[in-house]
């Protein structure tokens, strides 16, 4: 298992807690950095005067975010050379086809709808960790 960071962009605290719980139960020990809105997520990714840009192994992105929407964040990530290579998994409540199609169009690597049933969520998160953190080979090493 890689040791890379996971960036979780999620405004709902409950969801953050449950996601972290799911990681834990799936024995995903990677450091999880949480951004509560789109602007914060971009700040973390691109860095600012005081901080260096974060280079996570995977970004888990909710679509419905305050300030800057998840879709906008996705676009910015794909526009930027530094962040373009980071796998982005859309992790959202919406199953609108429009959202799914747009997400892939804008360069999302995966689209996952959060199920109500926590059991199912656990399964999804387990598979997600296995694929993006273990099996997937990113273009450049994000190990630090």
């Amino acid at each position: 298992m890689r040791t890379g960071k996971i960036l979780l962009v999620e405004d709902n605290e409950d969801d953050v807690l449950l996601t972290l719980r799911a990681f834990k139960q799936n024995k995903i020990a990677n450091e999880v950095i949480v951004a509560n809105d789109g602007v914060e997520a971009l700040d973390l990714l691109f860095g600012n005067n005081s901080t260096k840009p974060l280079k996570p192994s995977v970004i888990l992105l909710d679509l419905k975010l305050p300030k800057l929407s998840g879709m906008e964040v996705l676009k910015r990530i794909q526009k930027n050379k530094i962040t373009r290579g980071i796998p982005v998994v859309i992790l959202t409540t919406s199953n609108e086809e429009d959202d799914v199609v747009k997400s892939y169009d804008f360069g999302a690597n995966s689209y996952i709808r959060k199920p109500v049933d926590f059991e199912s969520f656990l399964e999804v998160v387990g598979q997600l960790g296995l694929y993006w953190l273990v099996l997937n080979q990113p273009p450049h090493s994000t190990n630090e």
Partner: protein
Amino acid sequence: MKVRWVLFVSALLLAGCEKEGQNQAVVCSSQPTSAQANLSSMKSFTYASEPGVQGLETSKTSLFNLLDTSLWPARWNCGIWTPEHGWLYIGSDVAIWLAYFAIPFILGFFYFRQKNEIPFRVVFLLFIGFIITCGLTHLMDAVIFWWPAYKLSAAIRFGTALVSWAAVIGLVKVMPEALELKGIDYYQEKIDTKTLELRKANEELEARINSEIKLKDINTKLLNKISAQNEELKKKNKSLEQLHELFESVQSAAEIGVWEVNLNSNRVYWSDAVYKIHEVEKGTPITVEQGINFYHPDYRGKIEKAIKSAINTGNGWDLNLQLITATGSVLWTKVIGLPVVENGKTVSLRGLFQDITDKVNREKRKESIKRSLEQKVVQRTIELESINKELNAFAYSVSHDLRSPLRSINGFSQALKEDYFEVLDETGKNYLQRISNAAIRMGKLIDELLDLSRLSRKDIQIEKVDLTALCQQIINETSPDPKYEFNIKKNLYLTGDLKLVKIMMENLIGNAIKYSSKIANPRIEIGKQKKNNKQLFFIRDNGAGFDQDYAGKLFGAFQRLHSAEEFEGTGIGLATVKRIINKHGGVIFSDSKVNEGATFYFNLIN
């Protein structure tokens, strides 16, 4: 010809005989001294002599007292007559008289029959007279034996003499001409040639008659043809008349007028309807300028241009123009004009004229109604679009915002159960389980509700769907318990949106499986049959069925006829089916009895 000769010869013969007769008459004696005198004759003589004593002188000298017999005895007493001699004399005279009278009768008969053919008619008549008078003298000779009317005899003889001489003179006059008359042979020859000529002429005539008959025949045929054509023409004429009448009634009914302008004489003809539309008295003479000036000033240029173009190019016009009538009313008129071209030159213009004010007003009203309707449609569309947007936003937020708390409820009750396993007793754990189950069910409800609302918003794409294959595919995907017996009719096809039809059949097959799950030998049949005069598809199961009284609730969202404990479900499936059917314009209805299975009949395009 023969008649002429007979007459002539007989005339000559008679002339000969007459001489003899006269001689005889001369022989007659005037002496009344016969010893064998007839007694009666004697008496009459005696009697006659008695009154004669007084007027003897005058009687003797008078030539005219023709019936005076006083001076002579009857001939029987004149001389001595043996009875044989006397009766021979009398008999012969009577015979001659009869013969002499017979001849002119015969001649007279011919004369009257062939008046025109008889030559020398006067002489002919004279001969007749001559023979009659000769006959009379002989009669007198016989009569004198008893009645001595010598004066009368003399008068008759005198008449005979006159007529005889007239005949002689006539004969002399006509003789040279009569001698010219040709002989029988000549005439026979002539007759023969004439007969020949006549025969020829006859033949020609016959030929002519024959050809005439032929001509007549042709003529008759022609006449027949002509009369037939005449009949046809009459019929056509009649229909034309009817058409004309119809045209006129149409004119007056539709208020269509006819007009004509003769370009040579500049004379304008208006039909009654045209006058009526212009509100001008019928028959008022109109000039071209006056006609044009009736149009609204804004439209005069148009009509003038059209007229010019018609005259120059031969093209007609069909214009809607505003007209100001004689009383100042403003009308809309339809003016159709057609140039009449003769030898490449426009000689007159004629056309139709109609008051279309009502029509134009109606159209204007229609136009304004249409515009306002269109405006309303646009407005409504905008409203609907915004409502739709709101709905979409609502659906989006439902899928997002309503699900998130459910996830929390489920997730944390799960976490509580796991993390505080020891602290919670069985009841507590059961409650938590119920909480998380309820959250899961609500999540499902929300998802299905969303699916349903998405269905309504989706456009359908019609194609031919192999229903048999589709059902088979769904059953394979569902992989139900082997106890189910499926009977799907082959070659079932329908037209509809494939994705929607699949959702529909998934629901229907799913229901059939679900509600027949509790019996030992569940059987599901899919086919097509005639129901209510329509070919309908059906899906039938032998499962739990339902009370048909509640069938009306069947297709409403979240409506259930069974409890969740009995058969699980959200009550969205048949509502979804109904939506899909409605979207295609089809029908669906059920037929069921409790514990006797259920049949759903449906089609997509009604």
